[in-house]
Every structure is written in C-alpha cells, then in structure tokens.
C-alpha cells in the first residue's frame, strides 16, 4: 500500500474508529491483531507472498521459546544465528549470488525492522530483562504493529506491551488531539511538498552529469554536481523519512501509543557522533545496545587495560556503523555506505579522544564556541550527504564517480559543500532567531484557537493541491525499501 494513498489514510482513520468503538477486552486480543493482519494484506496480491514472512515470524517465535526452555549461551547464539541466516536469505544479499533464492514474488517490506524486534526480544529474554511469557499474539502484535511495520520507529518490547495494554484507553485532551492532527498535516507537507521539490532538484543534478556515460567533465564540474545532488538527496531523505514519522507517531498517539521519536533536529548536530543521536535515533540506539555495547565488552575482555578502552571504542564504532550501513541494502553500494559511516564515526571518536587527551582545555573551549558548532553541523551534513550517495548511485556509477573524482575531488567536494552548508545553516539559524524575537503578542496569535486551526487546514489544502499537481512525481517512502 502506498502510504500517500487515500487507502492508507482511510486505513489509519478507520483503525482509530474501530479501536475506540470495540469493547475493551477484545482490543488487544482480536481487534489489534486483525488490524495488523489487514495492513499486511494490503501489500500483497497473492497469499503465497506471505509465506516467507510467516516462516520468518514463526522461526523468530520458536527461537524465543527455545531460549526460554534452554537458557544457555549456546542456545541463544545458535537461534540468533539461525534467525539472522533466514533474514539474510530472504533479503537476497548480493554476496550470496551462488545461493538459489525463492523465485516467486514475496513480501519483504518490514523484514529488517521485524529482525530488530526479534533480536531485541531474544537478547532481553536471554538476559532475563523480559521475564513474562511472550505469547504468540503479543509477539505478532509487537513485530507487525501496523504503525511501525514498514520502518519503525523501533520500539522496545517492554514499552510496546505497556502501551498496547492501554490501547484506545488514554483520554487525550483537545489540545493533544489538535497537536496530533497538526503534526500529521505537517508530516504530509514535508513528504508531499518539501521532499518532492528536493527530490526533483536532486534528480536534476544527477541526470545532468552523474550517471553512466554522462560522468565526465572537469573535477570542479563534477564536484559541483555531486555536492548539490548529495545535499538535495539528504534533504529529500530527511523530509521523506521525518514526515512519515510525524504521520505515524501522531496516529499512534491518537490510538494511545507513545512511539519513540526518530529525529531530533539533526541540523543542530555538532559532530558526526552527535548526529547519530539525532538522526534515525531508534536505529542508532538499537545498534548501540545490541551491537556496539556487546562488541566493546568483548574487546575490553580481550584487552582489559583501562587506557586502551577509548581506542577500543573507536574500533567498536567503526564495526557498528559498518554493519549499520550494510544493513541498509543487499547490494555492494551499501558496503561503501557502511565504510563511509564507519570511517566518519571512528575518525570523529579518535579525534575526540586525542584532543581530550592532549589539548583538553582549549578543546573544551573550542567545542563550546558558536562558530565551531556551526562548522560542526555544516561539515557533518556534508559528510553524511556524501555518504548517502550509495542510496542514489548504483555500484558501477558510484565506482565511476570515485574513479573520476579521486580523493582530491572528494576532499574538495567535502570542503566546498561544507562551506555551502555553513552559510545555509547559519542563515536558517538567523531567521529562526529573528522569528523567535517577534513580540509575544504575535507569538500568542499563532496559538489562538481559530488562527491555529485555519493555518493547519490551509497547509492541508496546500498539500492536497500539490499532491494533484505533482501527480506521479511524488516519491514513495524511501525506507520502505530497507
């Protein structure tokens, strides 16, 4: 189901009606699972498309039962490996070209996020952080919650259970309800208008010299195209993804779910490490808890010296982000993406460790300075935008571009792009400061009952009109593919 379709919006509104209208005892046991099943059914044309997903879920559930029945480390490692193998098989990773894959079309939407949820339960059950019995219904509702099925946010099982129990029972105030609707429309505005405009610019720069045989011209020409295509893609991805999250989180709130936030002003990041506490937060947190921490512990056990730990952190960061990059897709380009991310965080961490060790005082002074914050944000964005080129270039084009630009071209792109970002972010912050400096009377006007509702509905009208205008051009949700 296209998440910008009337069908999707009707489903969401319909689900609110059904949940609130159904008797409380049946909400978790019947209504919610049925809504989840119905949602999954909207993605398929034939029942056979569900078989791999059903097998994957069943394997996950049986694995949890095995970990409970045999609470040994070996059982945990074996079943986790087994679940991972099924996932890798179903995702058809490029390095498994020798394997015979299932040849009929099947549903792969949401697989990655289901894997995250399964591993979270497996780890927590193994570590006895989850002590209650995980029933098939609660496992299914958690893994296939229609609000988070496509691409998160990734919630913890324990949090999900608490909120599921209160499904449709939380009395929302009028202001809270209005904020939900307002955020939903704001999300639509991001997805329909801002993401479409940014994607069109991105396409324009890509088609103008960054694809196939068109990758030619001077290094400066290619740098210019590469910088602009990368920056517009990053903006497009941000509006597309965060807009979708706004819609999902606000609908969740109307149903009584307090879904975790996935974005927290990523433009304010002061470094690449800080960036990952603000961008796709639930994914970064998941990798922190279930990959970084165990891996760092493993390294620390091998090299127990306290002075080495910060450097082990550098290695753990590299490994974690390399893995996170590879998770994004099954082709070789995502290995390059992972290398980009791994290099970014580990260099950032190493720089931080060394500066704190040798220049602690001036370094602390430096990072508190406003200009360093601006430059940090700008160069972080440029680096991340460049890393994202793995999302929009296929492997041969990416290699073609790397061959043409060489290290010199990439460094030049990074520096020039960083300066552009610094100017844009600086202007953005200045405008925001000016707006916040408006007399309180004007600001209170924005909170007026009639003005706020008129403004929100005006945005909705704008979204609908642009939706018709951009018919066929409005991009689908990017993270649906992962």
């Amino acid at each position: 189901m296209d998440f910008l379709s009337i069908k999707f919006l009707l489903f969401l509104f319909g689900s609110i009606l059904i949940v609130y209208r159904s008797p409380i005892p049946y909400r978790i046991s019947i209504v919610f699972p049925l809504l989840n099943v119905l949602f999954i059914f909207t993605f398929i044309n034939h029942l056979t498309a569900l078989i791999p997903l059903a097998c994957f879920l069943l394997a996950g559930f049986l694995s949890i039962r095995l970990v409970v029945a045999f609470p040994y480390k070996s059982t945990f490692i074996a079943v986790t490996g087994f679940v991972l193998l099924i996932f890798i098989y179903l995702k058809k990773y490029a390095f498994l070209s020798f394997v015979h894959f299932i040849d009929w079309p099947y549903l792969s939407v949401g697989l990655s996020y289901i894997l995250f949820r399964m591993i979270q339960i497996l780890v927590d059950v193994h570590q006895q952080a989850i002590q209650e019995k995980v029933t098939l219904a609660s496992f299914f509702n958690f893994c296939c919650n229609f609000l988070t099925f496509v691409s998160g946010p990734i919630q913890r099982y324990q949090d999900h259970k608490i909120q599921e129990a209160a499904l449709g029972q939380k009395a929302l105030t009028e202001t809270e309800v209005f904020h939900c609707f307002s955020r939903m429309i704001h999300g639509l505005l991001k997805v329909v208008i801002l993401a479409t405009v940014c994607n069109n610019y991105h396409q324009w720069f890509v088609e103008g010299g960054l694809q196939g045989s068109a990758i030619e011209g001077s290094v400066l020409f290619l740098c210019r195209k590469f910088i602009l295509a990368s920056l517009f893609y990053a903006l497009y991805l941000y509006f597309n993804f965060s807009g979708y999250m706004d819609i999902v989180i606000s609908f969740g709130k109307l149903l009584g779910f307090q879904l975790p936030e996935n974005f927290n002003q990523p433009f304010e990041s002061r470094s690449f490490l800080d960036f990952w506490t603000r961008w796709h937060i639930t994914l970064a947190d998941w990798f922190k808890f279930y990959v970084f921490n165990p891996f760092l512990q493993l390294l620390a056990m091998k090299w127990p010296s306290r002075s080495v730990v910060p450097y082990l952190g550098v290695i753990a960061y590299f490994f974690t982000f390399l893995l996170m990059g590879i998770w994004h897709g099954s082709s070789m380009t995502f290995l390059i993406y992972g290398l980009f991310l791994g290099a970014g965080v580990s260099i950032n961490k190493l720089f931080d460790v060394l500066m704190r060790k040798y220049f602690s005082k001036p370094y602390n002074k430096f990072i508190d300075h406003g200009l360093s914050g601006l430059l940090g944000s700008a160069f972080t964005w440029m680096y991340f935008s460049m890393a994202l080129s793995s999302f929009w270039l296929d492997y041969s084009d990416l290699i073609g571009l790397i061959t043409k630009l060489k290290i010199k071209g990439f460094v030049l792109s990074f520096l020039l792009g960083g300066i552009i970002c610094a100017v844009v972010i600086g202007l953005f912050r200045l405008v925001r400061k000016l707006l916040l400096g408006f007399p309180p009377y004007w600001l209170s006007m924005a909170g007026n009952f009639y003005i706020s509702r008129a403004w929100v509905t005006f945005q909705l009208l704008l979204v609908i009109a642009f939706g018709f205008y951009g018919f066929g051009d409005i991009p689908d949700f990017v993270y649906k593919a992962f």
Partner: protein
Amino acid sequence: MKNIYRQASFLLIFFCLWYLVLFLVTYLFYSDSGEFGSYKNGLLGKVPTRTIFLDSGANVDLGFWVSQHKTHRIILTGASNTGEGLKPPIMQEVLPSDFTIYNATMGGSNSTEIRQILDVARMSNPGSMKGTIFIIGVFFGTFFNDSNSRGHFLLKGKNLTVLQAEALRYGLYKPSDNSLKLTISPAYMPVVVRLLRPILMWNLVFHDIKVNYDLFWAHLKHQNPKGEAAKQIALGLWKDGLGDIKYYAGDAQMNDFANLCQEIEESGASVVVVDLPVPPWLHDRSEHYQKYLNQRKIFVNKINALPRAFYIDLLASLPDTTDMDFRDSVHPTPEAAIKWSRAVSENILSQRQMLGF
C-alpha cells in the same frame, strides 16, 4: 474519542471554509470558459490567454466539460505550430460570428494524442458531434511513433501520453485501450470539474513557479545560436525526436490517421486537415520531411474522399512563404501566423456547404 471527533470536525469545517473562500476567489480571476482560446494579451502573443481549466490540449479533459459554445465550434488540434500558427481571433474575423474556436493544441503531440482529444470531445458531448469542425494541424513532426512521444517521459514507466497523465491526475478518468474512460457519470462532470477550481488555481500557481524557474535557468544557459549553427541543432533535434526513419510515418500510421479522420467524420463532426508549412531550408535537409512528403498521399486521398472532410496544403496556398516567416524550424512568426489563420479560414469558408454551416 469525543475530543478526536470534535477536533476532526473543527478541522473539516475550517477546511471547507477555506475551500469555499478559494472557490469564490477563483471567480475573481478566471471565468468558467469565457477567455477560452483568445489572445487577450495581444494577437502577436505566442500562446492564447489561458483559462483555469485549459492551458493547452492536454487539459481538455476538464475544459471541454465546462465550455459553452455557440451554434458551431471549431476545435484546433495539433502540435505547438498549430497553436501558434492558427489564431482564433483572426479566424473569428473571417468566419461567421456564431462560431466558437477552441485552441486545443498541445506542444509535441502526435496522432495518438489527437485521437485522445477527439475521445474527450466526444465524451463531453455525448449527443452528435454535428456542428463541430476539427481542424487538425499536421506536419512532418506529427507522425512519430508513440515510443518517441515526450509523454512517455512524464510518468516514468507508466507509458502514458501527456493528455492521459493530465486526465488521470484528478481521478476523474482511467486509462483504457490507449485512450481514456470516465470514472464518474458524465452528468456529474461539469459540477465536479467546477468544484476543482480551488485546486486548479493552486496548480496554476505551482505551474507558474516551475515554468518561470525553468525559464530563468534556460535564460542563464541561453547561447542563442544563429544561422547555420541553429539549423544544425534543429536538424539534430528532429532526427532524434522522430526516431528511426525506417519506422517513421509508416503506411500503418498514415492509415491510422486517415481512419481517425473518418471516425471524427462518422461521429457527425467535420474535419479539416491543414498541412502546415515548414521553412524552405529544411525541405532538402531532413530525410524525415522527404519521407513525409512521399507518405502523406496515403491519408490525403482518403480524407478528400470523405463527405465532410478536406485537406489543405497551406504551403501551396501560400507559395511566397520564405525562411523569414519562421522564428525557428517549424514555428511561424506572429506576422506569418496572421497570414496562415486567414488562409485557413478562407479555405473553410469556401467549403461551407460541404462542412454544413
């Protein structure tokens, strides 16, 4: 739940109020169809003054449902050179006053898109098409294969013409056998189309932003080649745009076009096919043009055999046409357009008995 209902109702009411206000505002700027095809901004303008419904032939899916014509109507179809070359106000001076002329031309259109315009005209006029004259402007650029149509680039991978893409936009049509079908009853169409006015006005705003933005960049990149360089570029563009000479203007396509004219005629309308001139310099230098000259007799003979149809070779009617009458490889200068419009109108007038008015 009560709060959800209350807030949803508030938002719905505010939304309807906005819609109503914008609906009324649209009438301040655009009437339903009064300016249709006119050149309000001066006869030497390149494009007709637009309406809220009709920018070009691509928008007939809406425009035809709300247009009010007098006893007779002329629907101009063809590519941009028809739109620029045959100006309704000039034609109106020559033709009787009970004629309404619609400029339903579409840049880069081929015979498939002309057929789709006819289909929409038929749908919006479910009775007989009697009293309608289709003027179809053709030239060597009309007969390229659908696979070369620019429309195929509009919706990537969806294989739609520009007109189809426009028609599918509001959900009032669905694609059917290379043409279109209505999704709602024709009786509701005029009301529904009018109800879209606030959306259409926004679309015009978005459209203008995009067009002016494109023009701005095009202006920055503009190199304005002249003389032989410009001719070489034009020849290259035509060669690419019309595709492989082997498949261009084949017998089947020419017969299809003749059949299209016959279909129009059988629906009760009359057909005038106007072969538009191209600059003399291009005659000997385009193999596509040469092939077209050889192939056009296939449809010319068939059209002339139809009771309410005839063919005009405008170059033969205006033998003193020179390169100076063109602003590029196919579009006439505004002064030449006035000559073209008069010549076509006089030809139509001379055949008034045959055309039934």
